[in-house]
């Protein structure tokens, strides 16, 4: 039991930090520009594929730097030449543009790297067990992932609170018009944030593509979860995104190991359920199988009862 709890905690920490790398950029973009970027997870996927491609050419370490920069540049271009010209048509057009972009990126990845998963192995230098936890190995790569994502968290925090541009970004989150009136170039700040958020997603892709799997469906799998994170955490709140990332990762990781169903729950109180009718399966579903739906359930409930999210300051 202790072993299960410890390992689940470790796994959810790794997964949660990965989610945070994605959601931090998305939540900043959303609260600043009001655009819910559907293609954000696509940038994560591009990061993974660029990382894979570059690491087959020149190795993993250059890829770790180059791939996020490429993805960030691409994100900045998308903002400059796509989203900015759509701003006058309102948020629906902007949102749909990112939906279209999602399709295009997924198909382009199909086009270039094929429909199957690519072999994107753990770099040799990190492929060893770093220590033993209750008799089981913990790989160095996981620790490396934790290190990178923690470093990113600290770096992002310092940039946002200790630098001039960080302060302008923070001001533009809530009062873009005011910041503009003070003479700052808000469109350029938007481009920077969009590019920076995409670069973070790209970085998450480079390290997450190895940890999870690098395939054309990876954006569609992770994308909705990232939405859940920013909704639950509260739009525009980095701390909220951080807490929600860890929370959701923990829920998903822990649910996998719990094999109780509603029937078992009612049995505790001495009730017996006779399962008949169309939805008789509901009583038999084990908690471990509900992993895919728990985040969405969480999100829908959150939006209905507390649309601000855990730590958000305002509603959408």
């Amino acid at each position, binding site marked *: 039991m202790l072993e299960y709890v410890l390992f689940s905690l470790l796994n959810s920490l790794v997964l949660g930090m990965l989610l945070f790398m994605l959601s931090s950029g998305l939540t900043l973009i959303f609260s600043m520009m*009001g655009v*819910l970027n559907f293609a954000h997870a696509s940038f994560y996927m591009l990061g993974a594929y660029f990382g894979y491609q570059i690491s087959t050419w020149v190795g993993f370490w250059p890829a770790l730097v180059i791939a996020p920069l490429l993805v960030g540049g691409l994100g900045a271009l998308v903002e400059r030449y*796509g989203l900015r*010209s*759509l701003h006058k*048509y309102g*948020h*629906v*057009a902007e*949102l*749909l*543009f990112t*939906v*279209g*972009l999602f*399709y*295009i990126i997924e*198909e*382009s990845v*199909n*086009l*270039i*790297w*094929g*429909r199957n998963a690519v072999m994107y192995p753990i770099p040799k230098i990190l492929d060893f067990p770093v220590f033993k936890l209750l008799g089981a190995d913990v790989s160095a790569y996981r620790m490396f992932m934790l290190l990178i994502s923690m470093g990113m968290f600290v770096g992002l925090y310092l940039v946002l609170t200790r630098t001039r541009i960080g302060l302008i970004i923070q001001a533009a989150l809530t009062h873009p018009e005011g910041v503009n009136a003070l003479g700052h170039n808000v469109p350029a700040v938007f481009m920077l944030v969009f590019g920076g958020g995409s670069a973070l997603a790209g970085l998450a892709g480079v390290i997450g593509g190895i940890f999870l799997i690098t395939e054309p469906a990876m954006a*569609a799998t992770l994308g*909705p979860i990232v*939405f*859940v994170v920013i*909704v639950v955490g509260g739009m525009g709140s980095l701390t909220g995104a951080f807490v929600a990332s860890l929370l959701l990762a923990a829920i998903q990781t822990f649910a996998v190991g719990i094999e109780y169903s509603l029937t078992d729950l009612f049995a505790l109180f001495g009730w017996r359920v006779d399962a008949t009718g*169309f*939805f*008789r*399966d*509901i009583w038999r*579903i084990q908690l471990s*199988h*509900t992993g*895919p*739906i728990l985040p*969405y*359930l969480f*999100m*829908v409930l959150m*939006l*209905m009862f507390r*649309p601000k999210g855990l730590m958000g300051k305002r*509603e*959408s």
Partner: protein
Amino acid sequence: MKHYLKQFGIWFAAVIFCIVLPLIFNSGFSRSMLSQMGIAVIFALSYNMMLGQGGMLSFGHAVYYGLGGFLAMHALNWVGDGWPLPLELVPLMGGLGGVVAGLVFGWLSTDRAGTTFALISLGIGELIAASALMLPSFFGGEEGVSANRMVDTTLTSFRFGQQIEVYYLIVAWMLVCIALMYLQTKTPLGRVANAVRDNPERAAFIGYNARVVRTLQFTLAAFFAGIAGGLFAINYEIINAETVGAIPSGNVLMMTYIGGVGYFFGPILGAVLVTLMQLTLAGITHAWLLYFGLLFVGMILWAPGGLAGLIMMHEPVWKAGLMSRLLRAYAIIAVPALVLFLGLMTLIEINYHLSLSVNPDEPMSLFGISFRAQSIAPWLVSLCLIGIGFFFFRKAQRVVRRSWNEVAQQMKGAAIQ
């Protein structure tokens, strides 16, 4: 008489058109394509009841389509077991399923519009799609639910063994649904839904509860989506969990948007065009989804009103008799656009050949020209085409804009005089 002809002429024309169409395009492929178009038209129009009329951007509209389809499929099985429901009315069961689900989920999600609504619809969509695989007793698990549509209880003499009989059933439902949805836009509810879309606060000030209005509009949209799902069940005789999933939800969004949300007839155009593209392009190239995505993004960037918006934009110009000016500018921009498209297409097809074909070393052929995808020449040609096309496209854009300005000025001048 003349008055009636003016008012109902287009409806008579539509009925005759729909009856004659499968007799002209009489191959099995085109008849089944026409059937799919009919279903898509209902589905897309029902989507526009929410997006265009009610201002609710949904990412989970297929939930009501799919749930309606599943209920209709079960109903079809019950009819086979002796239920006294004629086959022609089975889609109503689908509509019923849509209404029930729409009422519940609509009430839960319509407290706010905008992004909150969009996210709730996405969440509900993913929730239902994921649950569908966990509830095999209703959704039939991996293989889905199937039924036989050739039942004894029918209203007509049709036995529905042939595709054309199914087509006429679908088209009859389609025409009825189009008429009902069109009339709905004229009802007080339809008008108030527009008001709530444009300014929920002011609608609330004059005494309308925005949430109630949205829920009613949502439920009606879900009803028509459910009918479309019921027709889907009859048409294919099999339905699986994918029907409630993200793919049809995204599809209907694209159809509606490409057609144009601002006009009632927009989604009809979108549904017909997108279904046509999906079925024909998929046979020609593996990259059809990519072309589809490019079309979608292109429409958003350059024609946010959709096809219907493009058409209606030219109506006043046409009436003023200035169309010829614009046509000249369009002819000018068509050339670089074609060059750009050819370049992109060549690049896409070369890449697809390299990454996805059985044997990439074999020569591929495009427009009857056969070449090897590995050689450098086709790459250079396509990149050149893209570069040249893009450069002149940007220039031609200015020409188009100038002639639009001229035309607009002339029309304004005519209006003042």
